[in-house]
C-alpha cells in the first residue's frame, strides 16, 4: 500500500469518524436521559454554588460519584446512578480524590461546620489539604454551603432536614446556659451508655495514642486545652464543648467514658460535632476519651466496675484517680 495524500486524508477521516460514531454518538443516542429517584432540581442558590464549584476547580480534588468498591467515606453504599446527573451542566465527575467524594455530602455536616470549614479547612480538619476559601466572601460561602447541602438530592434532603431539626434543638439547649446544655446533651445519650466506664486502662502509651487522635481530629474545635477555644469556635453555634465543665456532670458522680464513646462515635447531629465512627475504630475512641478525661477533667473512669474479663493484651494498671466533687473541684 502506498500512502497518497488522498488516502491519508480521506482514509484518516473515515476511520476517525467511524470511531466517533461508536464511542461518542452511539452512547449519546442510546443512553436514556432520565432522572433518578434521588434527583432534585437546584434552587438558584444551589446553582450559584455549583457555578462556584466549577470556577474554583473544586473537582481537581473531589469526585462526584460513589463506586461499588467505596467503603469508608460519606455516601458509601449508594452507588451513583446515571439519572443523578440529569440536567446538570456540566456534571463534573472528577478523576482524583485528594479529598473525599462529595456526591452524597448533603447533610453530612451542619451548615456551621461547612462555613467554618470553607473559611479554613484546618479549623475543623487539622490535617486537611483543602485551600481556604475565606477570600470568596460570606455570600459566596453561603452559596457553596447551599450547593453542598444539595449534594445527594432527595437522600441528602432527608439528612439535611435531620440536621436542621437537631440544630434548632441544640441551639435552644445552648441558650439555656452551660450546665443545662450539658444536661440536655446527656439526656440524648441512650440510658444504657451513661453509667458506663471506659473499659481500657489509661496507660501512658494509651494516652499518647489518644493525644495523637485528638490532635489529628479534635483540636481545631475543642482546642489544645480542651476548653472549646479552637479556631473553629468563632463560626460554630453551639460552640465546641468545653470539656472542663464536665467535671461537674459525671454520671453517678463517676462515669463519663460511655457518654464520650457514644458522642464521638455518633457525633451530635445538628451541631458542629461530627461522627467519627468511620474514621476511628473502637480502641482509638476509647483512647481519645481517656486522653480527654485525664488531661482536661483530671480524672478518668477507666476500668471502674462494671467490668468484664479484661482483654488479653491489657497490661497491669491501677486507676488511682479520685472523682472530682459535684461542684467540679478535685477531691
Amino acid at each position, binding site marked *: 500500500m*502506498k500512502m*497518497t*495524500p488522498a488516502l*491519508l*486524508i480521506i*482514509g*484518516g*477521516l473515515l*476511520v*476517525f469518524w467511524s*470511531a*466517533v460514531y*461508536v*464511542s*461518542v454518538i452511539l*452512547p*449519546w443516542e442510546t*443512553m436514556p*436521559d432520565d432522572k433518578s429517584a434521588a434527583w432534585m432540581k437546584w434552587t438558584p442558590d444551589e446553582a450559584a454554588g455549583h457555578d462556584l464549584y*466549577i*470556577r*474554583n*476547580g473544586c*473537582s*481537581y480534588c473531589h*469526585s462526584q*460519584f460513589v*463506586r461499588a*468498591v467505596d*467503603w*469508608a*467515606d460519606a455516601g458509601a453504599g449508594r*452507588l*451513583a446512578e*446515571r439519572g443523578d*446527573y*440529569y*440536567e*446538570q*451542566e*456540566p*456534571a*463534573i*465527575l472528577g*478523576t*482524583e*480524590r485528594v479529598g*473525599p467524594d462529595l456526591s452524597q455530602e448533603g447533610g453530612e455536616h451542619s451548615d456551621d461546620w461547612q462555613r467554618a470549614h470553607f473559611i*479554613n*479547612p484546618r479549623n475543623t*480538619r487539622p*490535617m*486537611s*489539604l*483543602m*485551600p481556604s476559601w*475565606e*477570600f470568596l466572601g460570606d455570600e459566596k460561602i453561603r452559596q457553596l454551603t447551599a450547593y453542598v447541602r444539595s449534594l445527594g438530592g432527595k437522600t441528602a434532603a432527608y439528612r439535611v432536614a435531620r440536621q436542621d431539626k437537631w440544630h434548632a434543638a441544640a441551639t435552644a439547649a445552648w441558650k439555656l446556659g452551660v450546665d443545662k446544655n450539658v444536661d440536655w446533651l446527656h439526656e440524648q445519650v441512650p440510658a444504657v451508655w451513661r453509667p458506663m466506664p471506659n473499659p481500657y486502662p489509661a496507660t501512658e502509651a494509651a494516652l499518647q495514642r489518644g493525644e495523637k487522635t485528638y490532635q*489529628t481530629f479534635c483540636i481545631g474545635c475543642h482546642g489544645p486545652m480542651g476548653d472549646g477555644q479552637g479556631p473553629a469556635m468563632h463560626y460554630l453555634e453551639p460552640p465546641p464543648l468545653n470539656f472542663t465543665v464536665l467535671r461537674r456532670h459525671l454520671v453517678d458522680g463517676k462515669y463519663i467514658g460511655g457518654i464520650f464513646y457514644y458522642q464521638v462515635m455518633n457525633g451530635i447531629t445538628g451541631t458542629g460535632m461530627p461522627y467519627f465512627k468511620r*474514621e476511628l475504630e473502637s480502641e482509638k475512641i476509647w483512647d481519645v476519651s481517656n486522653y480527654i478525661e485525664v488531661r482536661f477533667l483530671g480524672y478518668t473512669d477507666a476500668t471502674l466496675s462494671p467490668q468484664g474479663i479484661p482483654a488479653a493484651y491489657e497490661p497491669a494498671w491501677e486507676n488511682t484517680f479520685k472523682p472530682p466533687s459535684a461542684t467540679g473541684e478535685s477531691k
Partner: protein
Amino acid sequence: MLKFASKPQSAALAFLVAGSAWFLIGTLYGLVAALHLMAPELYNNISWLNFGRMRPIHVNTVLFGFVATTLVGCAIYYVPALLRTRLWSERLGWFSWLCWNAAVLSGPTVFPFGLQQNREYTEYLYPFKVLIMLAILTLIVNLTLTIAGRKEKTLYVSVWYAVGALIWTAGVYPIGNVMWRPQTQALPGLVDSILLWFYGHNMVGLLLTPLAIGIAYFVLPRVTRAPLYSHRLSLVGFWALVATYTQIGGHHILQAPIPNWLRTVTVVGSIMMILPVFVVLANLWLTTRGRGMKLWGDPAGRFVLAGTMWYLLVCLQGPLQSLPSVQAVTHFTNWVIGHSHIAVLGFAGFIALGGMWHMLPLVCGRKLYSARLVNLQFGLLLFGLVGFFAVLTTAGLIQGHAWATGETVYVVLPSLNVYMALRAMLGLFIIAGAAVGLYNVVMTLRHGEPLEPAALEAEPLDAARAGEVSP
C-alpha cells in the same frame, strides 16, 4: 512590515521558542500546586495562588503550551523538509502561532480570577477555544497546501502522523469542548463525561502521540543514518493507532455509571493498544539496531530514544490500569498522576525536546550553543521524572490500598505528606531542566555558530527517506 514573518522557517522557530518558554512557566505553576499539597498553609487564602486555580494553569500550559507547541514547531519544519519544499505560507504559520499562544497565555492570565471551565483539559474560556480551533484549521490548510506543492513524491511516515494529528484534533477538539453550546461548553447530564473523556484521552492520543511518533520516525533514522526498518510496519502502526486509540476514552470513567457495552469496548480496546504501540516501537528500534551507541551519543537522539522507552512503560502501565480490578485500587489516586507525568513529559515531552534539539539548528541555521547543556537538561529531567514516577506511584498505592481496606480519605492524608514534599523537591530538577533548555535556545539563537548552508539542504533528509525503498 512584519518582514520577519515571511522569513523561511520563522514560524517553526517561533513555535519552538514559545514551547521552551512555556516549559519553564508551566512547570513553575506545577511547583505552586505541588507546594500547596505539601504545606497548605504556605500561601493560604490568596485567591490568585489557590490550588483549584493554579492546577489548570499548570496542566494546560505544559500540555498545550510546552509539549504541543514544541511538537507542532517540529512538524511544520519537518513536513516541508521531507517534501523538499517550503511551508506554503510562513505568514499563515505565524497566524496559527499567534492564535495558539494567545490561548495558552489565557491560562495564567485568566484562571487566577476564578474564570475557567473545570472540565479537565477544556478549561480555556470560549473565545480562546475558538482561537485554538483557528490555529488547528490554519495549520491544516498550511500543511495540505504544502503537500500539494511538494517536489518529493513519496510521503514519508512522519508526514502522515503530522497530518493525521491535525485533522483528527480538528474533530476531537470541538466535540470535547461541546463548541456548539457556547453558554456552558458542556452537555447536560452524564453523557457529557463521555464526550469529555473521548476528548481528554484523544488530546494525548491523537494530538501528542502522533506528533511525537512523527518526530521519532524523523530523528532516529537520521541520527543513526539507517534506513527505516519496514514500511509495512509503519502502515500498520499508523492505522491501528487511529482505529484503537479513538475507542478507549471510556477507561477514564470506567467506574462511573456508563453503559456496560461501552466499558467492555474500552477495556478491550485499551489492551489492544499494545498492538499499535509495539509495532511502532519495533519498527523504530529495529531501525536503530546495532547503532545504539551512536544514538546515545547524540544529545537529541538520546532524548528521542529515552522518549520511546517511556512510551513503552506508559503503554504497559496504561492497559494494566484499565483493568477493572486494578482500577479499583489505582483510580482517583496519585498513581494516575504518575502515569500522566511519564506520559506527557516522559514520552511526548522527551521526544518533543529531542526533536527540538535536532531541528533547531536546521531551523535557525546555527549550531547548538551547547550540546553539554542538552545533556545536562536530559539528566535533570530524567532524574526528576524517575523520582516523580516512583514517588507518585507509591503514594497512589498507599491511598488506594488504604481506601480499599476501609480507611477514609482524610485519615490517609498524613501518610502522603512525605511524598508530596518529595514530589515538590523533585519538581525543582524538572524546572531546572526547563530553565537550562530555555537558556540554551536563547544562546543558540544569539551566539550559535552559523551552519554551512549545504548542511541545511540536501544531506540531512536522505537518511530518513532511505526507508521508503525497504520492504
